[in-house]
C-alpha cells in the first residue's frame, strides 16, 4: 500500500496541471463571451468552395 504515497502526489500534480490550464483559459479571455459561440456553432460549415474572392484568406474561414 506504500505505493499510495507516490500515487497521491502524482494525482494531485496532474489535477494541478488541469487547474493551470483552466487558469490560462480564463486569463486569455476564453470565458469572457459565453453567448456567441453557442450561436456560431449552429451555422453549418460551407461546402468546399471552388474559389475565394480574397486570396489571402486562410483556409476554412
Amino acid at each position, binding site marked *: 500500500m506504500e505505493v499510495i504515497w507516490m500515487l497521491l502526489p502524482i494525482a494531485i500534480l496532474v489535477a494541478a496541471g488541469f487547474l493551470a490550464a483552466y487558469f490560462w483559459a480564463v486569463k486569455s*479571455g476564453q470565458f469572457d463571451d459565453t*453567448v456567441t459561440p453557442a450561436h456560431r456553432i*449552429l451555422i453549418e460549415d460551407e461546402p468546399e468552395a471552388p474559389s475565394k474572392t480574397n486570396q489571402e*484568406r486562410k483556409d476554412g474561414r
Partner: protein
Amino acid sequence: MTLDTAAPAFSVSAMSSGPGSHVWSCTHCGLPVPGRRDHEQGAGDIDFCCEGCRAVHAIITGCSLERYYAIKKDSASFAPASAASPGGARYGYLDDPTVREKYACGPGGRSMDFFIEGVHCVACLWLLERLGTLVPGVESARMDLGTRVLRVTLAANGSFAAAAEGVDRLGYKPHPVFEDRQTARLQKGEDRRDLLRIGVAAFCTMNIMILFVSIYGGAQGGTEKAFLWLSGLLYLPVAAFCAWPFYRSAWSSLRARQLHIDLPVAAAMIIGSTASYVRLFRGSDDVYFDSIASFIFLLISVRFMVRAVHHKAASRGGVGEFLIPASALAESPADGSVRAVPADRLAAGDMVRIPHGETIPVDGEVVGASGFADVHMLSGESEPVPVSDGSAVYAGTVNAGPELRVRVSVSGARTRIGRLLRGIASAPKAPVVLASDSAAKIYIGAVMAASAGLFFWGGGLGLQESFDRALAMIIIACPCALALVTPLAYRLAAAEYGSQGVLVKSPETLEKLAKAEHLFLDKTGTLTHGKFEVIEWDIVEGGLDLAEVALVLEEGSVHPAAFALRDHARSLITARCGACQPDLPQVVDRRETLGTGVSGTIGGDLYEIRSAAGPDRNEVPGPWVRTEIGIFKDLTLMVRVRLGDRLRADSASAVSRLKKQFRSVELITGDIEPSAAAAAERTGIPHYRAAMSPEAKRDLIASTPLSVIVGDGANDAAAMSKAWVSVAVQGSIEVSLQCADVYLAVPGVAPVAELTAIARRTAAAVRWALGISFFYNVVGMWLALSGKVDPLVAAVAMPVSSATVLAVCYGMIRRPGAVRGGGRARWK
C-alpha cells in the same frame, strides 16, 4: 412617431377587400414592399422595400456572400428586422494617429471595438465576421452577440476607417466603443477572478473529498493522519482565496451594523476553519474541511450565476432606446464634415445635423435655417411646431421639416426626457422586495442567535455535538429566496418588458397587474393607427395608378387628406422604381377649392381630385372609412381612394391574447356607434360602448374593481386616475406619466398582453421561490436542530436549494429561445 415613419417611404399597403392584392417581401430585410398587386411573389422574384436594401443586396452578392440569405432563412431573429440604411457618415477620423493610439487595443494596437446597431439574427453574425471579404486589410472580425460589439483586427496596412465604412455598407451602423477602458478592464478582471475562484475551489474540494472518502471508508492510523493533514493543506487556498468575497461583505455589513446574508456564511467559514485546524493540531479526527470546502465551492458557483443574470438583465436596453436615437451626426468644427457618434457622447457646444424625419438626439438650440419639429411625443401637440434660429428643441422629438443644425446643450441622461426616464428608474422597489429584504434580515438574526444559544446552552449534549449542530444550523439556513431571488425576479421582469418598449413607473404596478381582472381598451390611437391615411387605392379597370398625378396635384395642400394622399403616392412610386427620382408631370392651372378638392391640367387632360360619393358606388365602404375621394381624368373616375383611420394589423391577435388573460375585455370609445361596432367586430372584442364622454368613461372605470384601462394619456386622464392600473399608449410622455402607471413607447396593444404575461409569470415565480424556500428552511432547521444532518450534508444542501430557487425564478420569467443581448436594440 419615430417608429412607423422614420424608414424611407415605407408604409404597409392596406388590405384591399378585392382580390389580387398581395404583399411582397423585400428580398433583403423581409419587410413588406408596398404597392405590388397582380400576382403572388414567386421564389425567384427579387424586390426591395427601399434603395438601401437594394444597395446592400448588391454588395452582398458582389462579394459572393449570398449564403447570408440562406442562413437568415433558417435562424430565428432576436430583434425586429429593419430596412438597411447604408451611407451617411464618414469614418475618416478613425485613422487619425491620436485616435488610434488612444482607442486601439489588442496586440500591436491593431484592433478596435465597434458597437453595431442593427444586428438582429445569427446571419448578421455570420456576415459581419466575414468583413474581411469585403474590406481588404481586415484580418479578422469577431462578434460578441451579448454586447453587440465587433472586434476588428487589421492586417499590417489596414485602416479602421475602411473597416467602419465596410460595416456601414453592409447596412449596419458601427459606433466605435470609446468607453472608459479603465472601468471595463476592472470589471472584466473582477469577473475573471471569480471564475478563477470557482476553479480553485473545485480543485481543492474534489481532492479533499477523495481523501475524506477513504477516511469515511475506514482508513486508520498513519494513513488517516496523513490524509487529514493533506486535506488541511489543500483547504488553505479555499479559506484564503476563494472565500475572500464573503469575508469582505461580512466585514462591511458589520461595520454598517446591518445584517447581511453573507454574515452566516462568513461566520460558518471562520468558525468551522478555526475549529478544524485546532482539532487537527490536537490530533482529533473531527474536522470539517470537506463540508466547508464544498460549501464555499457550491456557494460561489451559485452566486456567480446570480450575478451573471443580474448583469445580463442590467445591460439590456431600457425604454430609453426606443425614445432617443443611439447615434447622431456630429459636425466637425474644423471642416464641417459629418461623422456618426454615439448620441450620449455629445458635449455642450457640439453641432449636430438632423435630417428630415429623424428623431432629435439631444436638447439644444437651432442654428441657422428654420423648420418644423413634431413635439407630439413630449408635449402632446399634434401639429408640428415651427422652429427657427435660437429655438429650443428637445431629445425625443422629430424633425418634421428640412434638415436642421442644432447646437447641443445637454445630451444623454441630462436631457429633458433623459431626466424623466431616470426619475422612473430610481422608483422605489416593489413592496414584495422590501418585505423580503426585512424578512431575510430577521431570519438571519434569528438563526445566528438560535445557533449561538444552542452552542452555549448545550442542553445536555456534549461540546462536540452541540458545536456540530450549531454549525449545521448556520450552514443550512438559506434566506437566499428572500434576499437574492426576489429582487432578481423583478430585475429580470424589468429587463423583459423594458426591451419591449414598456415603461413602468413603479414595480408595484407589476404586482397589481398580475391581479387585474377587467380590461378596457380605447379605440383611436390604441387599436387603430390614430392617423388619417389611405385605406384603399382602387384603380378602375385597366388604368394607371396615377400616383404622380396625385403627388403633383396635392403639392402644398394642408388638407389632412392631402398628407395621406401624398404619403401613399410616394410609397407607390418607390415600390415601382426604387428611389429613382420620379418623373413628375408639369401641372398647368393648378387650383385648390377648400373643402372640395384640387384640380389641374396635365398634358392636356383635366385631372381632379374630389369627393367620389355618388350613386355610382356599388359597394358600401367599411364603417371606419371616413372619406371617399376619386381621381378623375376628364370627368371620368380613374381611381377611387378611401381614407380613414385604419385598424392596426396586430390588434386582433393582441386582443385574442388579452381575452385569455382578463375576465372581461371591453372597448370604450368616444367615437360613433358604427365605428366602434366595426372595430369591436374586427378585433374580436365581445363588448363595446360608443359615444362615451370622458366623464362617462371615468364613472364606468370607477365602478369596476381591478380594472385596467389602455388609452391615450392626455384624453383619458380622468378615467386613468380611477383605474386600478392605467396604460398610456404613446402620445405625450410627460403628460402620460403624470396620469398613467405604464407608458408604451411602441404603438399598439400587443405590449399590454406581453406585460400582463410577464407580471403574472413574475408573481408566480416569486410565490414558488418563497414557497420552496420556506419548506426547505423549516425542514432543514428541524433536521439540523435534532442532529439528524451533519455539516457536510448541510453544506451541500444549502447551495443546492439556492440554485433551485434561482433556476425556478429564472425559468419562469424568461422567455425561452433567442439571444437576449445587451446594448441597444432600436426598432426602426
